[in-house]
């Protein structure tokens, strides 16, 4: 058994890094599932969905070096598209009375529904990305930010499909703890596989040195575009999962705040590695929940008749600034997490000498 693990680690160098992330995450999921605390469960589901979003964002930003503020628009499109595909026609009569045609009749099972919603979002991303991926640096970042605003305005005005500014309700709770854990693990693995793929390698090269990459045969626009579309697909999945976890969505819940939080998770953890995306998500989620618990306790005292409203946001902001100042390369410094040295040594001793 051990030698088989060792073999796997020899063939897939990233498997070790992936296991170091996935095993603890699943262990926590099992523990909390057994402990059966509703609040902890909800926090964990939220964190797994954020993992999908942040690792999806890392797949683009980390490998290309382009910071995107636009990925939450794909989350929103994915969320609304999944609702349109999955919600039963009987419910749509109430929530989306103006909806006609096949969309009003369709009712897909959850997993095919979210996959189709993500595919639809990826197609949109493919069209948007074609011109966008020619930009670099701050121009690219500004363009993605504009995309976020445009998507938001469209969602608000496409009331037939989204209920506009009003909250969309009537969603089923499909995103259970294990559903969210499954997708988080799958997306983490995808993050590693993509990074080590041909496209991932070429994209990372273009991040480091554009001129050299292009004279080595890298078509920078294409490799960026592929990453953009794949990461849009993943963020759309995250949105669909999130919709069927919260059971209510509105264009406001998938806008600036979520963008800031996901980008902050990525930067705090370190954009350069999948481990960074995971570490940042865990750190910010933990911090956020701890501060919120404190806010509730402090508010209970009603010091001078005041609640502690805003306490969480202010200290979260302060903590983020401190983290970025103290670890500008991110919590993981752009590295992946490796097995503890002792365990590594034991496994390596068992590894049969590879052919190379």
């Amino acid at each position, binding site marked *: 058994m051990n030698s088989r693990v060792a073999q796997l680690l020899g063939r897939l160098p990233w498997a070790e890094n992936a296991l170091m992330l996935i095993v603890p995450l699943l262990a926590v999921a099992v523990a909390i599932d057994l402990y059966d605390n509703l609040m902890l469960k909800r926090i964990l589901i939220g964190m797994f969905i954020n993992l999908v979003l942040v690792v999806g964002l890392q797949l683009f930003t980390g490998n290309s070096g382009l910071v995107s503020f636009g990925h939450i628009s794909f989350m929103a499109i994915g969320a609304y598209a999944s609702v349109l595909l999955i919600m039963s026609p009987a419910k749509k009569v109430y929530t989306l009375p103006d909806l006609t045609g096949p969309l009003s009749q369709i009712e897909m099972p959850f997993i095919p529904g979210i996959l189709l919603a993500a595919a639809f979002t990826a197609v949109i991303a493919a069209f948007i990305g074609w011109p966008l991926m020619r930009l670099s640096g701050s121009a690219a970042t500004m363009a993605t930010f504009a995309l976020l605003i445009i998507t938001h305005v469209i969602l608000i005005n496409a009331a037939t499909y989204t209920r506009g500014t009003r909250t969309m309700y009537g969603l089923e709770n499909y995103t259970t703890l294990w559903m969210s854990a499954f997708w988080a693990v799958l997306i983490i693995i995808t993050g590693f596989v993509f990074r*080590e*793929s*041909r496209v991932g*390698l*070429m994209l*990372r*090269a273009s*991040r*480091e*040195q554009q*001129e*050299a*990459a*292009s*004279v*080595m*045969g*890298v*078509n*920078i626009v294409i490799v960026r575009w592929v990453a953009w579309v794949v990461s849009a697909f993943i963020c759309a999945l995250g949105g669909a999962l999130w919709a069927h976890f919260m059971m209510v969505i509105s264009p406001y819940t998938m806008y600036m705040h979520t963008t800031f939080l996901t980008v902050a998770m990525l930067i705090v953890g370190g954009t*350069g590695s999948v481990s960074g995306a995971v570490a940042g998500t865990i750190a910010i989620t933990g911090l956020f929940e701890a501060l919120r618990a404190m806010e509730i306790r402090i508010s209970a005292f009603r010091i001078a008749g005041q609640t502690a409203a805003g306490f969480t946001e202010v200290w979260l902001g302060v903590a983020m600034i401190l983290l970025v100042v103290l670890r500008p390369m991110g919590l993981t410094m*752009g590295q992946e997490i490796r097995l503890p040295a002792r365990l590594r040594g034991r496994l390596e001793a068992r590894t049969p000498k590879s052919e*190379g």
Partner: protein
Amino acid sequence: MGLMHMPGDFLNEAGELHLHGKVIGLSGEGVVGMMSSIEGNSDLSKLIVQRVTKDFAGLRAVDDVSLEVRQGEVLGLIGPNGSGKTTLLNVISGLLPVSGGHVLVGEIDITGWAPHRIAGKRIGRTFQTVHLFGALTVLENIEVAAVGVGMSRRRAGERAQSLLEEFDMERTAALPAGTLAFGQQRRVEVARALAMQPHFMLLDEPAAGLNERECDEMLGLLASVREKIGCGVLVVDHDMRLIMRLCDRIHVLNYGRTIAEGTCEEVSQNPEVIEAYLGSAEEEGEVVSA
């Protein structure tokens, strides 16, 4: 092998460097011998720069320059600072658009092509200031070039590994390229260009910034590359010793214009060259040997 074998395909199935038919010496005879063996691929056997002009906002950096690099030949491109050498390399590799003239590989006009498309014609290059992918490992740096010309990830890995062995740098494979000593970074750049299986290589001052020992190593490396691979090489350098030892022919630029071309001897006796280039080389002599 024989006629059907492309000179760029210097690695055999096992991923090892092999000699191109026979060992090619530095003598003209050897080069001629090899040239005849690749005449069969006439469509790709020459890199041709045809009356190329490049203007930067009123400044003419390259003025009506024509030259030819044949496969298996090393052409030196020399000239004082600012004479347009690097600009010409950037034009050939597609990083800068031409203002006039044409660049051809054999009969294919590659003028105006994007750099990655030109790379697909197997034109590799190195840079004057090292342009490695700093955060990527040394192995990955070389793999990028192999993958960039269409190899699978796996084959690219094998090729990169064998090139590192050839360059005696296996130990550095897993290190981030940016952490290497400067001399080693230069070697990685050459290895990276070779990973493309180039038909032509453009080397921009491969010895710049190297100390004397490293410079000798680089010279030895390039000489062995030249012997084993037989691709066409266009090399820019200030180090006349390197140029004289490496090149079959020399092309001299001054203020963007061709002022001389020919064999090393012819050029070094050309009075215009002596005035324009060797005159100013006295000042640069310190820099080169420093």
